[in-house]
């Protein structure tokens, strides 16, 4: 129960009801007004009683530790926590937004049930408030009924930003115990799986890299908005200030993107590339590195006689080269790289030869150097190939696991949960009919995406088409797929067929299509764990602690799931009763710290609450001059055997960096059939023309911006007013269009335009901008909400999801957001 409800239960219920019914409407302004703060209470007290509590910022996955300032019961300030190794007392521009999120006037006040059977953009759900018990019982009944009918596979749980073991971490177990392959389905395919899969293919680690930016001397950034949205964003900017402003020598940077942004402007060299062609650039850079003998011989290996035989257009005898930690270098040269000259790449990418060569030489001759990439490079149909080409550059210069290079993130030392799920599997869980059904998104299925981690963007269309089947009940956690998915209108149709349970605190589009609202606390009101996003490699996990009592009758998702679990028939219910509550789960997780106390003294739940973060330095491994060493307690001195390297670091079939990817080769037949790629090449990074659906003549790219990384700023007016400072978007975001492109279409600065693809069209206002490629339109992602609150609703430009074709990389499953081609005309 929320604090407010305890004081005035009936008045509160009425207020919540009013709020619920006017959730869509413009009317009812009076009911939307939060009561002004008590007059005088804060202002007159000379000695302000300010409490500082620990929490983790929620606005992106970086998980910066924050100090939350609460005075006389009101949260009013958020600063980075000085003792937190990611925040270091700093915050990105999204850090303070938590105060606006907490007090968002459009928040849900408690659980509600839909009474309007019709669903759609213009339908008012007509939610009525219900109690938590009622709500949870409805869910449990539905789930139990599905199980009884042997249709438990038709329950899906989709999640977005799952933070840690006390929320998202519980989901897999739930799916296993309850009996659904669709619990959970993560959003990673609509995120950046292209990155993850490329690394899996090359070095066997299916994850994002952690990096040692502090010691790197060169950054080559492909399509990752390092200074706007790359993660951990706050920390990256701290590193930037250090490596560019303090460190000796100064780190040099070349950045590649499709429009001029702060990342490119602040770098030493900006390269404006044709969308989807980053792989060509990377291959050409590899070509220069090899032909000019710039590769790191201690890591890669060398010609037996030391003579460089890499010459443009000429094949090399693989036997003449002794590979150290890479596999397939010469074959790669022979089959692909020998012809990928800077001249060739210049034609493909539209980047001048001079700049390609200069970049390659700098990157190849500066140690340590890192090539970074993200969605800009891989959210295309050729995405995994682009990503593999870029990541291979890191191997060529020997920065894998090196000082100033990249590594992978170690998990935290969590203790076991109160119960072991395997002890609570009943027959249904072990052999129920659910086991014979594939996942709804056809992840792991040869008809779908055999090699992907998730295929969330397929859930809506697959269910709608009944292929492989139709879902019955869908629950959403930290996910607004009804709106964020490409071709979102299709999802709206699918949603009409589902019983939807939404747990968001906010009236999102998914919530508007929901049958049941089980609102979560906002992050400042809850306990929650969050192991770090890949950072510097050494393990770190942090804790949210509430700054105040929950404002409304909301419930932490972890608890919601546990309460639902308790109501599932059979041993599943017992398991969740053993778990008890999310807080109990957290206590058990923290018990693991006893045997691995944090560097700051955190050894249990209480100390974890106090400090907010547990971490243990250092990262345990380092590659130095082609040898791998393990930490011995004082330094990296213990030489590792190749078997150890394979087990812990280069987790590929050969234990090396596989330019010729063994993992892809294992699935060569499937890949060849589904992608049409040549069986001789498909396991190597190679150039492939990207496909561009949509029917238009201009590329459409929608990057994240500094103030809007994961779309949580849509209903915050302070965000809207600052959203797009590069071109002045201050009450709406502008569509960046090159002046010539505009002129050719009779479009002037500030005009309203229609951007259309084969799916439909959206409307927005343009800003003529020389910094955008003439063949490309760019505007920040996630605008054009039709729900989400009074500030979000209807704000231009329209939502890119309405015109983005749902097309994905067949290997990684990465949703190819930036691949649709559109038309633009005056509206």
């Amino acid at each position: 129960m929320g604090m407010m409800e305890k004081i005035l239960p009936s008045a509160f219920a009425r207020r919540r009801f009013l709020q619920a019914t006017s959730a869509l409407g413009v009317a009812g302004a009076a009911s939307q007004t939060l009561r002004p703060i008590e007059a005088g209470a804060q202002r007159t007290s000379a000695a302000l009683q300010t409490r500082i509590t620990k929490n983790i910022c929620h606005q992106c996955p970086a998980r910066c530790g924050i100090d939350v300032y609460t005075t006389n019961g009101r949260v009013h300030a958020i600063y980075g926590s000085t003792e937190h190794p990611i925040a270091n007392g700093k915050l990105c521009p999204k850090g303070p937004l938590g105060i606006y999120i907490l007090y968002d006037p459009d928040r849900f006040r408690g659980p509600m049930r839909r009474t309007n059977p019709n669903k759609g953009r213009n339908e008012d759900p007509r939610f009525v408030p219900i109690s938590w018990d009622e709500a949870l019982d409805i869910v449990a009944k539905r789930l139990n009924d599905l199980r009884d009918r042997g249709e438990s596979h038709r329950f899906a749980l989709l999640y977005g930003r799952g933070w840690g073991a006390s929320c998202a971490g519980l989901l897999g177990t739930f799916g296993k115990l309850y009996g659904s392959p669709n619990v959970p389905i993560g959003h990673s395919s609509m995120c950046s799986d292209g990155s993850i899969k490329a690394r899996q293919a090359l070095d066997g680690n299916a994850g994002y890299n952690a990096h040692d930016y502090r010691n790197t001397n060169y950054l080559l950034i492909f399509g990752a908005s390092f200074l706007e949205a790359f993660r951990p964003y706050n920390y990256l900017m701290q590193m930037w200030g250090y490596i560019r402003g303090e460190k000796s020598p100064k780190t040099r940077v070349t950045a590649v993107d499709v429009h001029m942004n702060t990342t490119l402007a602040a770098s030493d060299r900006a390269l404006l590339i044709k969308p989807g062609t980053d792989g060509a650039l990377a291959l050409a850079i590899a070509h220069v590195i090899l032909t000019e003998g710039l590769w790191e011989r201690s890591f890669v290996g060398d010609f037996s006689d030391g003579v460089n035989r890499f010459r443009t257009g000429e094949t090399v005898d693989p036997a003449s080269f002794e590979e150290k930690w890479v596999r397939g270098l010469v074959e790669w040269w022979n089959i692909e790289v020998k012809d990928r000259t800077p001249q060739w790449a210049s034609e493909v990418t539209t980047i001048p030869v001079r700049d390609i060569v200069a970049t390659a030489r700098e990157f190849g001759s500066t140690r340590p150097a890192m090539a970074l990439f993200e969605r800009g490079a891989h959210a295309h149909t050729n995405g995994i190939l682009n990503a593999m080409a870029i990541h291979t550059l890191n191997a060529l210069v020997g920065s894998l696991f090196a000082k100033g290079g990249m590594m992978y993130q170690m998990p935290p030392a969590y203790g076991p949960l109160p119960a072991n799920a395997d002890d609570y599997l009943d027959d249904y869980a072990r052999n129920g009919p659910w086991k014979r059904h594939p996942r709804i998104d056809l992840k792991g299925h040869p008809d779908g995406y055999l090699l992907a981690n998730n295929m969330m963007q397929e859930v809506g269309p697959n269910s709608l088409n009944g292929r492989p089947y139709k879902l019955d009940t869908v629950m959403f956690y930290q996910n607004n797929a009804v709106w964020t998915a490409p071709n979102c209108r299709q999802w709206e149709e699918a949603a009409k067929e589902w019983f939807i349970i939404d747990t968001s605190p906010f009236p999102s589009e998914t919530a508007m299509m929901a049958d049941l609202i089980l609102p979560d606390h906002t992050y400042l009101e809850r306990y929650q764990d969050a192991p770090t996003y890949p950072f510097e490699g050494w393990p770190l996990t942090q804790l949210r602690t509430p700054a105040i009592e929950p404002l409304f009758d909301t419930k932490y998702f972890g608890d919601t799931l546990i309460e639902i679990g308790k109501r599932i028939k059979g041993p599943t219910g017992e398991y969740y009763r053993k778990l008890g509550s999310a807080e109990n789960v957290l206590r058990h997780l923290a018990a693991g710290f006893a045997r691995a106390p944090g560097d700051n003294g955190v050894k249990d739940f209480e100390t974890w609450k106090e400090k907010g973060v547990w971490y243990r330095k250092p990262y345990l491994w380092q590659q130095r001059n082609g040898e791998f060493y393990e930490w011995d307690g004082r330094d990296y001195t213990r030489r590792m055997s190749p078997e150890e390297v394979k087990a812990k670091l280069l987790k590929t079939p050969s234990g090396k960096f596989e330019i010729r990817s063994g993992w892809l080769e294992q699935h060569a037949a499937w890949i060849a059939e589904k992608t049409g790629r040549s069986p001789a090449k498909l396991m190597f990074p190679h150039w492939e023309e990207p496909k561009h659906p949509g029917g238009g003549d201009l590329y459409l790219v929608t990057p994240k911006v500094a103030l809007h990384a994961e779309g949580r700023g849509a209903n915050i007016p302070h965000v809207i007013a600052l959203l797009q400072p590069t071109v002045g978007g201050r009450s709406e975001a502008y569509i960046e269009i090159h002046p010539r492109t505009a002129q050719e279409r009779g479009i002037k600065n500030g005009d309203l335009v229609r951007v259309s693809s084969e799916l439909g069209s959206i409307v927005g206002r343009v800003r003529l901008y020389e910094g955008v490629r003439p063949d490309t339109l760019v505007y920040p992602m996630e605008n054009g909400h039709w729900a989400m609150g009074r500030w979000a609703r209807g704000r231009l430009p329209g939502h890119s999801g309405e015109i983005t074709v749902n097309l994905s990389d067949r290997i990684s499953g990465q949703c190819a957001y930036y691949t649709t081609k559109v038309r633009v005309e005056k509206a």
Partner: protein
Amino acid sequence: MSTAVLTRSSLPPISWTLVLLVLGLVGSVVAGGYVISQLQAHGHAAFHGDSRGLFWTLPIVTYDYFVLATTGLVMIASLWTVFGLSAFAPIARRSLALAVASLGGAVVALFMELGYPVRALLLIPFSFTWSAPLFWKVWGIIILSAALVVLFLTWIFPGKDERPALPAALVAFGAAIFVAVVAGGVYGWMSMRPVWYGGHTSIAFLVEGLLTGSALLVLFSWIIYGFRGEQAGRGDTPAFGEPFRLLLVVLVAAHGILQLSRLVSGLYSNLDGMEVWHHLWGEPLFHAELWLGLGVPLALLLLPQTRHEAYALPLAAAVVLLAAFLSRYHFVIGGQMVPLFKGSWAPDLLHYTPSLAEYAVLVTSVSVMAAIFAALQLLLRSSGSLSAQS
């Protein structure tokens, strides 16, 4: 020019003064009421000012316009009260009455614009902020008002024929010039605003004051004489006679020269901020205000075909008033159109269109002025102090 006392039949007919009073009151109440209701409901969001750079908008333009008209009217009255030019004796009292009315209109506009107008009255005089042009301007107006009060009490209400005591007249005259110059300084001393900056601005304000003052005098005289200026004014009320025609011609020419001078200087300059002049050059209204505002009055008053027509002077006065207002508007708004340090938030020239409430402020000011003038006229008539020589 004869100064013989005339019979009551030569007085302006009471009817038009009454009409003026009624119109003025109605306008004040309706327009003023609208503005006040908008301000109550929305605060100054009812106006279209913008912190990106358009701070002083139509209400300030209105305020400045009427303050300057006040100074001009006092200076014209001083032609008789200080300098003894008998040609201007017949209009001196009316001029001062119109000055008071104009000041009323100005104050009303200012009060609707300021965040705390009453606080302004209390705090400004004794703040002793010597460096602030507005401090000096307020004191100028205080002194001018005091001098006007003295003149009304000792000279106008008693209805004396001869000139008033020199000290009060001199102080009023000096204060009028002072206010005009400082009012110009409020703009002209702002070195960070190239469109406004320079010593010429004070001169331009001085001339504009005289210009608008004389035009207002002509127009209001014509109105209260029932639009039959020539007939009523034959030799009696020189507001329609030769000295005024000459005065207006000279002032229009002077104003024109000053306008053209700053226009050329603005068009010529590469300096950041001066591109506003090029923008204005592209605006039809600017050209209308400049060329028609200059040409039409001069043509009417100089061309043999028109100069002696009854409508010439009043029509010229009306055109002058409109053109001068637009000129003031373009000057004030133009000087703020180039945003200072707003980056991408305001990448081009700022654009401004007045809100309905701001138009209503103008209407209110004009109505208040009309009402006060008409009321003063009636007051002076009824107290018998209104002779043919007013």
